[in-house]
């Protein structure tokens, strides 16, 4: 057997093995949001938070959270085709005090028995770098108003093999505009809904 008959297959095998097992020169690129025409992201409630804040007696900023919510973000290559929707259960409000939670659920505030769900549905999405400037209809306490919400793309990553994207936005509104005018002497009219979500690419 000629030596070349042995060395050529051997070199090919070694080369192949090296190529197959080789590490690339750099890490793989992070998942991109502009990869396809319409990526659908569904909010993962375990790794997401919807909070609210309000000023108490003009002195301090008080926070609470909603424990039950859903969300869906559709991002198209053309941002105008994108959409954002959130839906939260008003009865799931949690401020760390049962008595206060009950009061906030009552007709004095959220009236969760009458209006169990609050929703945000986008009507327009404009992309500005990593920020999505979203205009939409916010329905709270049975009243629907147009609001603006800037959602920032915080980052992207992998979670158990799935591509996930993180978004953060703050929605400021006056609660009296939505008919929630209880205890305006103690709690500010201005409220902020803080939406910080991790959403899984479908």
């Amino acid at each position, binding site marked *: 057997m000629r030596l070349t008959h042995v060395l050529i297959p051997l070199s090919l095998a070694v080369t192949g093995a090296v190529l197959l097992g080789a590490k690339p020169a750099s890490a793989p690129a992070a998942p991109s949001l502009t990869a396809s025409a319409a990526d659908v992201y569904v909010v993962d409630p375990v790794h997401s938070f919807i909070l609210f804040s309000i000023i108490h007696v003009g002195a301090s900023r008080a926070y609470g959270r909603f424990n039950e919510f859903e969300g869906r973000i559709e991002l198209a290559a053309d941002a105008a085709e994108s959409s954002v929707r959130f839906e939260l259960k008003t009865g799931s409000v949690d401020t760390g005090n049962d008595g206060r939670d009950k009061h906030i659920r009552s007709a004095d505030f959220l009236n969760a028995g009458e*209006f*169990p769900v609050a929703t945000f549905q986008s009507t327009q999405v404009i992309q500005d770098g990593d920020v999505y400037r979203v205009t939409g209809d916010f329905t709270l306490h049975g009243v629907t108003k147009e609001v603006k919400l800037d959602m920032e793309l915080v980052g992207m990553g992998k979670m158990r093999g799935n591509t996930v994207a993180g978004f953060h936005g703050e929605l400021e509104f006056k609660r009296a505009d939505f008919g929630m005018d209880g205890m305006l002497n103690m709690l500010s009219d201005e409220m902020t809904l803080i939406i910080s979500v991790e959403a899984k690419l479908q």
Partner: protein
Amino acid sequence: MFHPLPILYAFAAAAALLALAWHPWRREAESTHAPVLTALAFAAGFGLAQVALYGLPQVPPSARSEWLGFLVLATLALVPLERSSRGGRVPLLLSSLALAAWFLWTTTGPKREYTWDNPATALWLGGALAAWLWHTASLRDLARRRAGGPSLPLVLFATTVGIAVVVGLSGSVNYAHLAGALAPALGGLVILGVWRPDLAALTSATAPLATALLGLLWIGILFAEVPWPVALLLLAAPEAARLPAWGPDSGWKAAIPRLVGAALPIAAAVVLSLPEEPYY
């Protein structure tokens, strides 16, 4: 925040209509329209207090609880049936059933959509309808048996105040005001009962009163998280007033044992509603 003016409006409107109905300053018989005017006095007092509290309601209302005011007004149509003898009983029962079923169905929309499954819906609506009919019949019977004097008005006044306190303790000042609006409408009847115990003011005028009491408790359960056993205790208070067997049968002093009988379930309901840890 406590608003006293709606209470004054309710008292003034109800008292004026009761005076118009019964002419308590005269010895002769009352106006022929007395039962209708008495029923109207409750409805008007309750309605006026609601308007003073929340403004004129939208039609249809934006909140389901606001249907209660309309329902109380609708029950005025039952007063002629309540006055008639046997022939009116079946139509009265069917009309009461239809109004109650409509109100219960309308107010449970969010619960049926988001919280209750079909068996729970059937259980809640069936139970509420049964309680509704029982209480309406019971109040009618009580009014017939204790036609005059301050006993029954005082018991109903105490029950209404109990509902307002329980709803307030359960977390809703808003609905506590609504419940509290009925109490001043009953205040005129208490005064009338003391002044002219010979007048059977409540007979044939119980439909709007029973509807307002039941509706307030139902709203408390649905929208103010009042536990249903607490609501049942309050519902039983007028019946419990019959239990004490001591004391005179008529006159001012007769009201004392009746009030004691009613006060027990009302007090139990209030104690059960006390928050474990107030947050204020």
